C-alpha cells in the first residue's frame, strides 16, 4: 500500500512539474499578451494541483496534509483573481493583440 501511494505521489509531482514546464514554454512561444496569459494558466491550475496533491500524499494523514490542501485552495482562489486583475487592466487599456470579436457561425444550425 505504502509503495503504491509513494509511486502515485511521485507520478503526480513529476506530472505537475511537467505542466509547469509546458506553461513556461507556452509563455515563451505565444505571440501576444493575452495568449501568454493562457499559457501561464497551466502553471496556475493543474501544475499546483498535481504538485501539492503529490506533497499531500507524501505527508500521509496529518495536520500537514490539511495545510497543504489549504494552500492549494488559496492558490486556486487567488490565482484567477490576480489573473483577472491583470487581464482586466489590459482590456481596459484597450489592448487587443491578435484577438477578434466572436461571431457565431449560425446558432440555430447544429455544427457539423
Amino acid at each position, binding site marked *: 500500500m505504502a509503495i503504491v501511494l509513494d509511486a502515485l505521489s511521485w507520478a503526480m509531482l513529476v506530472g505537475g512539474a511537467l505542466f509547469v514546464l*509546458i*506553461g513556461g514554454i507556452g509563455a515563451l512561444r505565444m505571440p501576444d499578451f*493575452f495568449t501568454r496569459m493562457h499559457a501561464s494558466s497551466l502553471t496556475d491550475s493543474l501544475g499546483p*494541483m498535481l504538485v501539492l496533491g503529490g506533497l499531500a500524499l507524501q505527508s500521509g494523514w496529518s495536520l500537514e496534509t490539511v*495545510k497543504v490542501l489549504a494552500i492549494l485552495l488559496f492558490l486556486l482562489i487567488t490565482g484567477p483573481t490576480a489573473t483577472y486583475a491583470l487581464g482586466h487592466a489590459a482590456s481596459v487599456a484597450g489592448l487587443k493583440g*491578435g484577438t477578434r470579436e466572436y461571431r457565431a457561425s449560425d446558432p440555430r444550425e447544429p455544427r457539423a
Partner: protein
Amino acid sequence: MNRPANSPPTARRRSARYWLRMSATLLLFMAVWLVWSGYMKPLLVSLGLLSCCIVILLSTRMGDLEEETGWLGVLPRLPAYWLWLAREVVISNFTVARIILSPRLVLDPVMVTLEADAQDPFGQAVLGNSITLTPGTLTVGVETGRLRVHCLTQAGAEELLRGDMNRRVAALTRR
C-alpha cells in the same frame, strides 16, 4: 444595504439569520485557527477563541456581516461542483498543452461576451474565477452581469457559450 455606506451599524435588532451567519463565521475562523496552529492546550485555544471573537467584533463594526453572501448555503453543493470543475480543468489543461507543444502554433483568439445566469455578484465572481481557472478561457471584465471572456480558440469559445459552466454556477450559488 439600505443605510449609507459609512455610517456605523446601529444597535437595531438583528435577525436570526444574522446570528446564524455570525456563528458560522466564528466557527470557520476557529477551525482555521486550530488547523493553522495545531495547538490543543486549553489556555492557547481560549486565547485563539478570544482573537477570533475580536475579529468578528471588528468585522461587525465594519459592516462585513450585514450582507448575505450565501456561502453557507453553497457549502453542501460545493464538493460536486469542485469535482466537475476539476474534471474540466484537467481536460482543458491537456487541450492547451497540446496547442502549446504543437510545432505550428495554431491560435485563433476571440473575445466573447457571456450573459451570466447567476444574478448576484457572488455567483458572477465564482463564474468568472471558474472560467479563468480552466486554461484556454480568461475573464477580463465583469459588468452588470455580462462577462467579457478572452478565448484561445474558437472551439473554446463555443464550448463556453454552450453554457454548461454558466448553468452549474447559477445552480451552485442559487439561494
